């Protein structure tokens, strides 16, 4: 087989990688907001649960988490198919790291804003969504960008729970052709190209946000 023939199976794998990455980034983003907000909530139960979840997923290795959800959980009756397991674990991991970003950014909003909001009689919920969040989101974007790339790299591990992603296809190809150098170089290039696209998308989102929400229109115009 020439290296051109390697491209077809690798591309099939790349599709799966992209789907899993985008899905877990999106889901992870949602979880990040839920957990991050819960973490700074004044309700001790909510913030306790969030704290535990974040500490658990940030403090243990992803591979251990993947294997645990894939091999250990079924032994007590809860079993998902590989792709669901992969997306779920990655989302929970990205969500835990994202939650810390959300929390940090929300806490970094100047206290003066909170005081002004109280003075204007805004409810806590309104303050969160209409005052804190727009300012915080801009702060979060660079960190989210890094988390997105990290997520893409982490998807490679799902090949170890039988998901036919880019790395899995590379391994199969290598087993058949024994041409490790070419196969792995192509695979690394594949991930790099996907990473560049991901960075482009994240920067685009960041730009859009910068132009929009953070700068509320002048009240007098």
């Amino acid at each position, binding site marked *: 087989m020439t290296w051109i023939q390697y491209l077809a199976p690798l591309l099939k794998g790349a599709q799966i990688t992209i789907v899993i990455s985008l899905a877990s980034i999106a889901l992870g983003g949602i979880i990040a907001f839920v957990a991050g907000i819960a973490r700074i909530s004044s309700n001790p139960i909510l913030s306790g649960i969030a704290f535990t979840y974040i500490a658990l997923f940030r403090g243990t*290795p992803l591979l251990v988490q993947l294997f645990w959800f894939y091999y250990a959980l079924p032994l007590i009756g809860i079993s998902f198919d590989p792709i669901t397991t992969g997306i779920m674990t990655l989302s929970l991991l990205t969500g835990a790291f994202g939650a810390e970003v959300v929390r940090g950014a929300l806490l970094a909003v100047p206290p003066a804003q909170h005081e002004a909001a109280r003075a204007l009689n805004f409810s806590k919920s309104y303050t969160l969504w209409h005052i804190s969040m727009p300012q915080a989101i801009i702060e979060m974007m660079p960190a989210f960008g890094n988390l997105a790339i990290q997520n893409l790299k982490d998807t490679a591990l799902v090949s170890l729970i039988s998901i036919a992603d880019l790395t899995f296809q590379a391994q199969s190809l*290598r087993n058949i052709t024994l041409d490790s150098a070419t196969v792995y170089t192509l695979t690394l290039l594949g991930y*790099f190209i996907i990473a560049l696209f991901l960075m482009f998308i994240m920067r685009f989102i960041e730009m859009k946000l910068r132009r929009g929400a953070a700068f509320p229109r002048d009240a007098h115009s």
Partner: protein
Amino acid sequence: MMYGYEWDTSSTLAFATSILPILGIGLIVTLKAAAVGYAIALVLGLVLALLRRSRVKAVSWAVACFTEFVRDTPLLVQLFFLYYVLPDFGIVLPAFMTGALALGLQYSAYTSEVYRGGINAIPRGQWEAATALNLTRLQLYRDIVIPQMIPRIVPSLGNYLVSMLKETPVLSVVTVLDMLGLANIIGERTFDYLVPLSMVGLIFLPLTLTCSALIHFIERILPKAGIPLR
């Protein structure tokens, strides 16, 4: 059994306690791999950071591309590359060294960015003063730059150590018998993955927490102005 320790599957607690010594041996492998990998990352990262500052455009550009490439590609694939491709060129490293090298390589891309940030954070005035005082490059780096850089880069470098600890289980994929590798073997032989995998997770938790606490402690006791090297 493994390493001479029999496991006792009669009850969950008995199982958990009987595999503790086995996982302990795996923990030592994990720590060793992280230590060697981190040492490589610290040294290689510094080399890359300094090369990046080279005035030869080709060198600085090549290093920048290489660093970005390593940063944005998965550790697992880099590990497979080193493990399977190096022997094709006659370099057969034992699995452990290959793993530590892969960790060191991937993290050198991160540490080089930290070093760069640290170096760039030194005010311009100091560089100019050094030129005015006719200091050699060695004196400049040894007495001015590095002492001031250290407190600034310790937090980030520390975080990367913790991250690296959490990435060592990937090495189990190339036959390194770290905690996860042993847990998988125990799981396959006893058909019970729940206990071994949970134990590994439970060992990692205090491990990473202790490591983070240690780093915070070091951050606090470091003098803010810098550490003189002489």
